[in-house]
């Protein structure tokens, strides 16, 4: 599904040049659950941003489902993103002014789905995430675990092929954290590819493969058995 080769990303300020990704190569097969680990500043988030088409590399190749996307413009990236990728963030990133239902509905609006279809789909997902009873609440009225469940619901509502999770349990206690990890695992078992950045060895153990990064490069891969 994902094939990147010699990916380079350098951040420049007036005096300093920081190499975030240093000729990094990585493949993720369809249906895989990959955890990316490494110390702060090793380039994990940069990699995830590029995988999520939120950022573009300075050089290298990025094939998404066999299509070269490294040189896509913003409009094309946005289109590919909304059809194929779901995001789960550490800080949930729900819109405070929208209800649970409306937050989850948002990706479908951008996809141009009809209202009746949106309603049906959102309700299905909320039900599955066991958060239906909170559909009319605003994010601040929910606990951290509930907010992350809403975020996961939002990530999967348009049936993405790929879910990118950036430290999804970072703001949760262990019980809520486990719950979220179980959700990701379930989704993966249903066929969704998951790429997760994490600091937690415990969470990483839910994945099929752990990619360890250092200074913008992959240094080690552990296949989980």
């Amino acid at each position, binding site marked *: 599904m994902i094939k990147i080769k010699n990916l380079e990303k350098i951040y420049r300020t007036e005096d300093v040049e920081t190499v975030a990704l240093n000729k990094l190569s990585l493949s993720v097969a369809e249906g895989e659950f990959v955890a990316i680990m490494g110390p702060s500043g090793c380039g994990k988030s940069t990699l995830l941003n590029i995988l999520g088409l939120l950022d573009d590399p300075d050089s290298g190749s990025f094939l998404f489902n066999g299509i070269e996307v490294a040189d896509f413009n913003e409009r094309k990236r946005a289109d590919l993103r909304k059809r194929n990728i779901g995001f789960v963030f550490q800080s949930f*990133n729900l819109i405070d*002014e929208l209800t649970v239902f409306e937050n989850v509905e948002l990706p479908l609006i951008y996809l141009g789905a009809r209202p009746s279809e949106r309603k049906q789909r959102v309700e299905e997902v909320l039900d599955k995430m066991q958060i239906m009873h909170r559909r009319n609440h605003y994010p601040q009225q929910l606990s951290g675990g509930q907010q992350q469940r809403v975020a996961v619901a939002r990530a999967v509502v348009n049936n993405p092929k790929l879910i990118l999770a950036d430290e999804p349990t970072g703001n949760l206690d262990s019980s809520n954290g486990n719950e979220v990890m179980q959700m990701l695992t379930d989704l993966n078992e249903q066929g969704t590819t998951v790429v997760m950045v994490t600091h937690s060895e415990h969470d990483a153990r839910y994945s099929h493969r752990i990619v360890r990064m250092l200074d913008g490069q992959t240094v080690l891969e552990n296949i989980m058995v």
Partner: protein
Amino acid sequence: MFTTYIKLAWRNLVKHKVFSFINIAGLTIGMACTLLILVWVYNERSWDRNNKNYDTIYHVMCNRDFNGEINTGQDMMYPLPKAAKASFPEIEHAAIVSFGETTLFRSGDKRLNKSTLTVSPEFFDIFSYEPLQGNLSTAVKDADAVILTESTAKALFGNVNVINQPVEINNHRTAYVKAVIKDVPRNSTLQFEGIIPFNPSSPDIIKSETEWVNCGNRVFFQTHSGTNIPALASKVMKLVQEHTEGENPTTRGSIVLHPMSKWRLYGDFSNGVNTGGRIEYVYLFTWIAVIILIIACVNFMNLSTARSEKRAKEVGIRKTLGSERKQLLYQFISESLLLSVLAFVLAAVIVIALVPTFSQLLKEDLVIPFKQPVTWVLVAAMILVTGLVAGSYPAFYLSGFNPIKVLKGTFLPGKQALLPRKILVTFQFIASIILISATVVIYKQLQYVKDRDLGYDQDNLVMVNSTPATDKSFDALKNDLLQTGLVSSVNRTSSPITDIYMSTSGIRWVGAPPSSNLVIGFIFTNEDFAQTVRTKILDGRDFRSGDSNAVVFNKEAIKLMGLKTPVGTKINWAGKERTIVGVLDDMVITSPYKPADPLMLVYENKWSGRLNLRLAKNADLKNALAAVENTYKKYSIEYPFEYKFIDEEFNQKFINEQLIGKLSVIFAGLAIFICCLGLFGLVASSIERRRKEIGIRKVLGASLQQLLLLMSKEFLWLVALAFVVAIPIAWWGMNKWLQNYSYRTDISVGVFAMVGIVILFIALLTVSLNASRAALSNPVKTLRSE
């Protein structure tokens, strides 16, 4: 999608109440100001449009050449309309109309002084009035007819069904009501409460039919459409010359056909050229409306971008979920359009509520033209333009956020993000400082002119209409008035001493230059003139009883005549030799903005006009007026007693300046208020950005004053910069405005210093209000949240 945008916009409004209030308040005030000004402009432009012949009616005026100086006058000769219509087929109708007079109407016990016009029959063919009773075209041909307006008819008879009812006119003849018309609209140049037809068989009118030199009435033409107006004006001039023997200022001049569409707004003539008039105020306030609306839009931009930190996360999430920048642009523009609609609705409510008060302030009957399609087009345009202008910059700014940075929480708009906002606030302050400076200069000029030494004393000087009865018993009346002890001096003049109705170029004296064509205003008066109006006698004496051949000139007239020893000089005027008995100081009578007019006072006992009464110094006004009324009624029971204080009458001359003064104060005040809202928003966002810095500084021992200074400094610099840019513009504009007045104040440095201090104080107050909150907050909280 759109409903989602609107829903979200609404929730944002409700959630951030203070921000929403400030934003909507600014926009509402801006829109309300603009709407009020537009209503006023619309009303100014609607004058006289009720006439169906609006496009083809012309006021015939004359540029008269007085020794090289051209004066545009309305007074024309009686036979002109008839002769012009007979000679020039392009004239469809022509009418002669008096300048307007006060006529005493009596019906039974009811006696009312009403303003009337005396007109020739074609008056109603040219002008449109709505008849309620009778037939206007037959009524106006009847020399015994009187045509009343609805209000006059009701005041005299209690109703409008009064055809053929007798009305006594000026106590000397009876006329019959032959028609009643609806009241003349307030936005009509020709104002009257009754119409009296000229009597073609009266000896005076028969004599006037051949009088081509003396001019005492107005002439109006209605032409066929497509008429070449300049060519017609030349032909009319030739007609006048053909009928006039010899040369006079009229025959040396030219005819001006002033179209009805220009009567209200283009009434000023300078050296024979139509130079403008109230249109300058219309332009001025239209510009002020645009500036205020721009200030309000800028405010909106500023406050919206200032709050960007709060919206950044939302932008990031939406982009992550697949929103394109275009969609975000639509979203933010939709929000600003929603705010624009909300602000407009509020502004419209405010305007509808304020129009009566505003009308009172302007002494006009302002009407909101709800039925005009153009109103609704303008409304839609205003909402749309405001929404788009105000929403465009924030929309581009917000939609451009990088989702990675905002979602990681590393996004914090740097100092450079504040720069456009600073530029916008500076621009707002430039506009406000210009408006405030203009207001101060307008007020200074008004005060300067009001404080001008008029050459006579207006205090306790009262004017009462004289009547045939008071003229007949003038000495007895005067004696009785003085006997009351409440009146110290009494005199009579042919015109109010706030105006000169007549002028002459026919004064002759030995030693006058042969080509002298001096034009001097004159007033008929009698004894005790100088004593009553309290003007200085520079040479000779005041009039005395029985001074039948005496004249008195003012200093300016004597200067123009070039007389070295005026007192005792004989002059010949109006077929009679007269002696100059005194020279008076110059009195400012007509325009308070111009040098004093040359004036001749002629002793004349037969001329009825105004009684001037100087009330005793310490007299109680109420008692004095009651005593005057009693005495007046003793001699003139058939006339209503009406009085005017000379100072109040004179103040009418400042009405335009007072109007723009009042409007400038209101609009400049509101403009600066909106600016302060903008500044408040900018300071709030800057403080948000510097919260941690403030906390650290506090922990390190900074005092409240030091923190306030730190936070105020960068904004006060903006105000100072705005001041430096605005002052030359304000000085240039106001200097140009002052050139309209020969008697004018100067723009001193003090004016701008005062404006500077006021602006700085207001800005400092706005900044401090916000900054002190941050400076007083507990640093532990801000640092912990970091």
